[in-house]
């Protein structure tokens, strides 16, 4: 109970501190540079100066937090990746050379590329399919809601749900996992799915696809609805059938949105950690970069140099998308 009070107290304190900063800083600024003095020239000068300072009062806390929690760590990680275990001695490129030679790293990056190939493609495709189908039926919104629901479930919760689906009992015991029950029913041999090297990657990916399809569906469904009616009507007049209209007329008009969905899921994939930790913890050749990095951070006393080097690799993989996003955002702002 005590921590509940601490939490409540801190919320109140935090809000109070934030409000008093924003309000207090504004108040001080208005006092120091008053807009109403006897001298009109002085007034204009004060308003101008206050206008120069005020944005930074509004932005201050945000810039401070972003700087400390996101910008500085990028440089610090880069710095640490050239240093030893505890970050003290300079080791040059030793950590990166170690990465290239390490079997665990090669396995992880191979798996990560598999994930990058499969998960965004599968989620986007299934999301597009679900969006197109649910938009055509009366109970589509309920269906959407249910397909979207896994989005609210944590990766760990999803891992428990799916571990139960993949559950395997040896010998003649009745299979209680639905996948093995279906396989047995169809006359096949039950398998310990998550312990099958290589193929287990796909069983883990299925979990993320299951979560992300709803996201893709929601965004693509909105995009499909935004397509101008005339283009579809024209196609109908020209005698196109439903499938032709969908792939030749509708999909080409929402390429931009498809790309956004694809890249957003790609970013999620690169950061995926919880699913692998909870399902296999990287055993049976299913490791990925984020889990490998967590390993090097903590297990066996921790090696910050190697951990940071792995983080830099993840960052490097994200960077092209980052640049693409920034360019798009700038283009959009200039168009506005």
């Amino acid at each position, binding site marked *: 109970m005590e*921590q509940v009070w601490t939490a409540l107290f801190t919320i109140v304190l935090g809000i109070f501190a934030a409000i008093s900063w924003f309000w207090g800083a504004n108040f001080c600024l208005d006092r120091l540079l008053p807009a109403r003095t006897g001298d009109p020239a002085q007034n204009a000068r004060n308003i101008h100066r206050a206008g120069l300072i005020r944005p930074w009062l509004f932005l201050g806390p945000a810039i401070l937090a972003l700087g400390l929690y996101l910008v500085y760590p990028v440089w610090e990680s880069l710095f640490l990746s050239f240093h030893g275990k505890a970050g003290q001695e300079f080791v040059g490129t030793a950590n990166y050379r170690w990465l290239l030679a390490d079997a665990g790293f090669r396995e992880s990056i191979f798996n990560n590329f598999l994930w990058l190939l499969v998960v965004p493609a599968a989620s986007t495709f299934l999301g597009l399919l679900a969006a197109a189908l649910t938009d055509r039926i009366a109970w589509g919104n309920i269906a959407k809601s249910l397909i979207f629901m896994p989005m609210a479930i944590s990766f760990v919760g999803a891992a428990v749900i799916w571990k139960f689906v993949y559950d395997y009992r040896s010998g003649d015991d009745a299979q209680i996992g639905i996948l093995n029950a279906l396989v047995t029913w169809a006359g096949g041999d039950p398998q310990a799915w998550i312990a099958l090297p290589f193929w287990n990657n796909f069983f883990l990916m299925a979990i993320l696809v299951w979560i992300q399809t709803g996201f893709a569906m929601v965004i693509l469904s909105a995009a499909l609805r935004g397509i101008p009616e005339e283009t579809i009507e024209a196609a109908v007049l020209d005698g196109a059938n439903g499938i032709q209209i969908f792939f030749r007329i509708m999909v080409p008009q929402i390429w931009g949105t498809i790309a956004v969905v694809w890249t957003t899921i790609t970013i999620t994939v690169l950061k995926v950690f919880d699913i692998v930790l909870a399902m296999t913890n990287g055993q049976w050749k299913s490791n990925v970069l984020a889990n490998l990095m967590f390993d090097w951070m903590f297990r066996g006393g921790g090696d910050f140099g190697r951990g940071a080097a792995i983080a830099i690799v993840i960052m490097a993989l994200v960077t092209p998308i980052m640049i693409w996003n920034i360019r798009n955002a700038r283009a959009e702002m200039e168009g506005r």
Partner: protein
Amino acid sequence: MANNPYRWAVHLSVVLFVVLWTLPTFGLFVTSFRDKDQIAVSGWWTALGSATRNDMFRAPEGEGEVEEAGRFTLTGSVFVGTSGHVTAFGISSKAPDAFAAGETADLGDGESLTVAEDGSFTLSGPESFKDKRGQRIFFTATTPPSFTFDNYRAVLFAEGLGRSFLNSATVAIPSTVIPILIAAFAAYALSWMQFPGRALLIAAIVGLLVVPLQMSLIPLLRIYNAAGQAMGFDPKSYIGIWLAHTGFGLPLAIYLLRNYMVGLPKEIMESARVDGATDFQIFTRIVLPLSFPALASFAIFQFLWTWNDLLVALVFLGPQDDKLVLTGRLVNLLGSRGGDWEILAASAFVSIAVPILVFFALQKYLVRGLLAGSVK
């Protein structure tokens, strides 16, 4: 376009989608209410209808027998702590269903056995059943679906889930509230104030949206440890994780809110300025109330993300038992109670319950936020 087979195909495909997307969750949900002995021997889908099970009961060795006219009779029930309907019984493992319920089985030496449909059996013979091994009774019984809250009781009070629930709430709520306030001011400045470097800052925010969390972990852990040592406090504290979540949530918060605020009508702002309102007044009296939908969207995002997060909690709160959040507890249980599905299923649903409720109650805002938040 609306020809019949085509419509049927659409309906069927959507049904298939919905089944695939809900069945895994539903299966675990059903399991969380089942008896743990039943979970281990039969699939959850059998729990919905009457289940048929084969079992064996060993009659007591003469306790409670009654002598009457030279015959000894022993009665009782084959159901111990359960209930159901016996459909068949037998006296050897080779033919466990040799007799239908109500029939009489001849055991030799003048002994006989009857098992009624309700599970009561009558064993009778010319000699006392004392000093003999208890008679084995094999039976097939159907049991009606039965569900229990025992698993939830067990995880909430014995497995520490209750404590973790509080911890998760302690992490998630301030981590949702603090960034909103900071981001709202920043978003206002970025959308309605003129200053040099504004475009650059907006570009930086868009860039920071995708910086992987992994980059920040090691440097921040070092700062926290150093600060903790220098000032003599525990580096793994709630305040630490609140600030961390604030930092990580800010880019999305600012981005979402700015996109929304930029779209507010310019005229309101200008007329307020003409009336002599300052930026601070415009922000608190006009922009903030108008931005409620965007604030709600971000709040839901951030709440779901902080409640469901594992990585940040593991790194900045640590894995000690008293500070474990729900996701961390669940991972621990997966390791220590790997096969105990009654514990895992109930624990999973304790951790999923709050986000699912938030999701269904506030889905409208979530969807709106998603649409505004994906970089166009």
